[in-house]
């Protein structure tokens, strides 16, 4: 996959989440982007059960199990600041078997769903982040498909982001970090989504009404 930047779009003043998403998508369509179906990224959180904690004597770790519709046969499992495992969908079956050791915090399942747009070499995905029934924010993912090295195309990506996000353009994602010359991969995108979901989870509930 190409270098990708995942960021959050704050909800416009006096508008709902859905209206802000519509403003964004209209801007993209005016730019000339073509709608190409939908996408979804979801994330479930697991924490080590109390029984395993006792024997190890360490603080419980949070494990995130994520899926991305761009890779329908894969499942991503990651720890914060830890390794990201890419596995096939049987990993979910394994998590069911492991339920004695890893408990899923059901209420914390978070996902983003929305439309996928293609604009020349860019793939833009604008989604509504929901936790349960309520909409909590907006995620914007932009991928520059031809390039896999972050340092080579970050300035181009930034310019493109500015053209439709304006003042809400994000800075360089933390995953680019020190390894500017490393090959970018899907695991890096999932790490960005995990960080975005965690940020949104900590935020106050969006004051405007959610999607009805």
């Amino acid at each position, binding site marked *: 996959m190409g270098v990708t930047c995942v960021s959050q779009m704050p909800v416009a003043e006096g508008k709902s989440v859905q209206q802000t998403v519509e403003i964004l998508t209209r801007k993209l369509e005016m730019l000339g982007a073509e709608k190409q179906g939908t996408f979804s990224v979801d994330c479930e959180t697991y924490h080590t059960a109390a029984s395993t904690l006792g024997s190890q004597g360490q603080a419980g770790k949070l*494990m995130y199990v994520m899926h991305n519709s*761009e890779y329908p046969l894969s499942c991503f499992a990651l720890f914060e600041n830890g390794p990201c495992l890419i596995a096939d969908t049987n990993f979910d079956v*394994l998590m*069911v*078997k492991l339920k004695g050791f890893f408990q899923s915090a059901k209420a914390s399942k978070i996902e983003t769903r929305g439309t996928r747009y293609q604009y020349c070499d860019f793939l833009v995905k604008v989604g509504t982040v929901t936790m349960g029934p309520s909409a909590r924010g907006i995620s914007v993912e932009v991928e520059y498909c031809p390039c896999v090295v972050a340092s080579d195309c970050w300035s181009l990506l930034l310019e493109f982001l500015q053209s439709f996000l304006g003042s809400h353009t994000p800075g360089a994602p933390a995953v680019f970090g020190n390894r500017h010359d490393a090959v970018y991969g899907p695991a890096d995108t999932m790490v960005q989504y995990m960080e975005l979901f965690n940020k949104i989870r900590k935020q106050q509930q969006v004051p405007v009404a959610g999607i009805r």
Partner: protein
Amino acid sequence: MQKGVCGGGRAGLALPGLENPELAEGGRDSESRGCTGVSCAYPIGRSVFISVVFHLITVVMEAPPVTMMPVTGGAINMMEYLLQGSVLDHSLESLIHRLRGLCDNMEPETFLDHEMVFLLKGQQASPFVLRARRSMDRAGSPWHLRYLGQPEMGDKNRHALVRNCVDIATSENLTDFLMEMGFRMDHEFVAKGHLFRKGIMKIVVYKIFRILVPGNTDSTEALSLSYLVELSVVAPAGQDMVSDDMRNFAEQLKPLVHLEKIDPKRLM
């Protein structure tokens, strides 16, 4: 991991797996009890029969076995049906020759795998076991993670050992990830041998090597003077006719090797 594609290693089959290295220890002891000639699994066979009878007398009735619940929570429960036996080194060639004749026509396939067994200890009495396997001769193959459940004790007439099995292909950082989850490596070994296929049945003939220096797969020594032979099928739960087909195939391999249902618990 390729976009949207899950690598399968050997033609979509689950990578050959040794479920219980303890079995190999048992095998070795049986061989050294003076087994000569071509047929070599008889000593195992006789003692298995006696211990299986004792074991069945003491079995405790539990919740319905997984075989009665083919689909749970949207995912199909896959079961592994297994028959095992062994041949001494000098009988290997005749066995391979017969297998080449009986099995599907394909290029003779050999493999060299490194398997690590990880345990997660919780408050439950028995730790959770996961097997991580990587190919040492095929660069770029995904790692293979395998979970095997307890053998189903349902039908005594069933010809093969049946247990729930979950196979997952993963990226290369599997061991780091398992350690992060809390798993600790219990033991590791190298398996080297031949792979055959007949329809959905997989026949593996391989030798187990003990790793002398942990983590160094170059210094190994053979665990026994024999090769382990396994006939296995991975099929959705509830398809017991599979074990009949397996028994019929195993009949054709006699007297070169006697493939039998060997209960791993007997060896503990």
